[in-house]
């Protein structure tokens, strides 16, 4: 059943996203193309492509922003609709609440992830240097000379991608939470969701500030943060320093993973045990 839910969800989001992706790519290609053509000998000195570029370039940038905006809004709107009239169809399906949540979340994550290469491709197309420059040259999409191909480099990249994925997941689950709480108001659900978003965000920011301050205090005092650099340490001190460094590096990921877990559990409760369709 999850696969079916995912299919229908992906089709609904894809119906919105694919035209935006294609539109952005076409505009980016036109921008890059007009830039190239205005420098080619037959057209050099003629204003047509320069004017075309002046018109299309801002549109391309707008479409790049639209990719992000439409992706986020479309996915949030789908969840909002689930707790409105559309819920009268979807919550009557013989599927578990976690499958409903998982389908929405998975499609949101996939559509966001797919938007990233589209954005990169648009940027590359807009650069105008298309001489097989996917992996080399100043305007290459991925410059091999910039890639860190060591294990450490690959690990860092993988961790950065994981952090980004966790952050995106957190953002969607957080929006779902606000919508889920807002849905408990019998009227003005949208306004209630927006108010919940701002109030909850403020409270969470204050809480996060306190946690970070406490963590910083703990690191500087209890863990002797300004101890010897790792290279100069030896034996048990070196092991301790390594564990501390790993913990420091892993803490954002662990915090985000924990936050995702909590949000998932609360969201699931809101659309399961606490479901109250208006």
């Amino acid at each position: 059943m999850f696969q079916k839910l995912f299919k229908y969800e992906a089709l609904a989001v894809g119906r919105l996203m694919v035209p935006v992706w294609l539109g952005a790519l076409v505009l980016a290609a036109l921008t890059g193309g007009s830039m190239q053509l205005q420098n080619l000998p037959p057209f050099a000195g003629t204003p047509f492509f320069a004017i075309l570029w002046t018109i299309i370039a801002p549109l391309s940038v707008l479409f790049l922003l639209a990719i992000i905006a439409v992706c986020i809004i479309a996915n949030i709107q789908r969840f909002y609709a689930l707790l409105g009239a559309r819920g009268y169809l979807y919550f009557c399906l013989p599927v578990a609440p976690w499958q409903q949540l998982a389908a929405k979340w998975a499609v949101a994550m996939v559509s966001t992830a797919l938007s990233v290469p589209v954005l990169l491709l648009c940027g590359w197309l807009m650069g105008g240097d298309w001489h097989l420059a996917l992996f080399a040259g100043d305007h290459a999409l991925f410059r091999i000379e910039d890639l860190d191909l060591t294990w450490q480099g690959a690990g860092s990249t993988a961790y950065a991608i994981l952090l980004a994925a966790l952050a995106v997941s957190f953002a969607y689950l957080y929006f779902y939470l606000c919508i889920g709480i807002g849905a408990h108001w019998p009227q003005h659900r949208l306004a209630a969701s927006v108010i919940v978003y701002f109030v909850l965000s403020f409270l969470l920011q204050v809480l996060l500030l306190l946690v970070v301050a406490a963590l910083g205090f703990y690191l500087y005092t209890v863990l002797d943060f300004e101890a010897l650099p790792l290279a100069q340490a030896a034996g048990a001190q070196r092991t301790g320093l390594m564990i501390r460094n790993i913990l420091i590096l892993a803490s954002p990921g662990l915090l985000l993973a924990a936050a995702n877990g909590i949000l998932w559990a609360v969201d699931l409760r809101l659309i399961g045990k606490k479901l109250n369709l208006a």
Partner: protein
Amino acid sequence: MSELYQVSALTKFYGAKAALNDVTFGVEPGRLVGLLGPNGSGKTTLLKISAGLLQATSGQVLIDGQEPGSYTKAVTAFLPDRMALPTEYRVQDAVAFYRDFFSDFDTAKAHAMLADLKLEPSQRIGAMSKGTQEKLQLCLTMGRQARLYLLDEPLGGVDPAAREYILRTILCNYNEDAAVVISTHLIEDVETALDEVLLLKDGALLAHKNADELREESGKSLNEYFREVFRC
């Protein structure tokens, strides 16, 4: 015969106001039950709780012995009082959606009902009139071979000719082992079809009686009885 649909001491509060107050009844398979009551009497709340769209404050609903959940949703066909189908869908998309999710969905039967309505598979739902959308939703709901049909105001907001079509569709398309609960305040239209009536007033169950017995006891038609009981 054991009861297919059981409601025990069901209570639902919205804030301090009781939408349902200690409602208890049972419905056996094969019965067509009218859930009657004026606006705000708790009909929709009762059906929404039974369909698993709303949580009760206290009490219990059992459908085929199970509390509302994945199993009961597989055996219950719920028709909401509003348009729930995605308006961007075409008729064929909606049929495919029901076929994909409900193993008891009879595609041929649904297509036959849609053909009666002269609805083209390629017709977009958003372009249909409100009445046609409601009829499409009803066809999809009745296209299922469910064990329990919960129909919330299927006759509301449509013209008398359409009401006749809707009622005929309901009566011709539920199997004999299934129970049907129709919520309505348009009693005159359903009066002759009902086996039992559930009368709700201010969230409380006023009566649960056999329709013929109620007519005999009161010496009135159900419509007249309803008007008398709920006179403002």
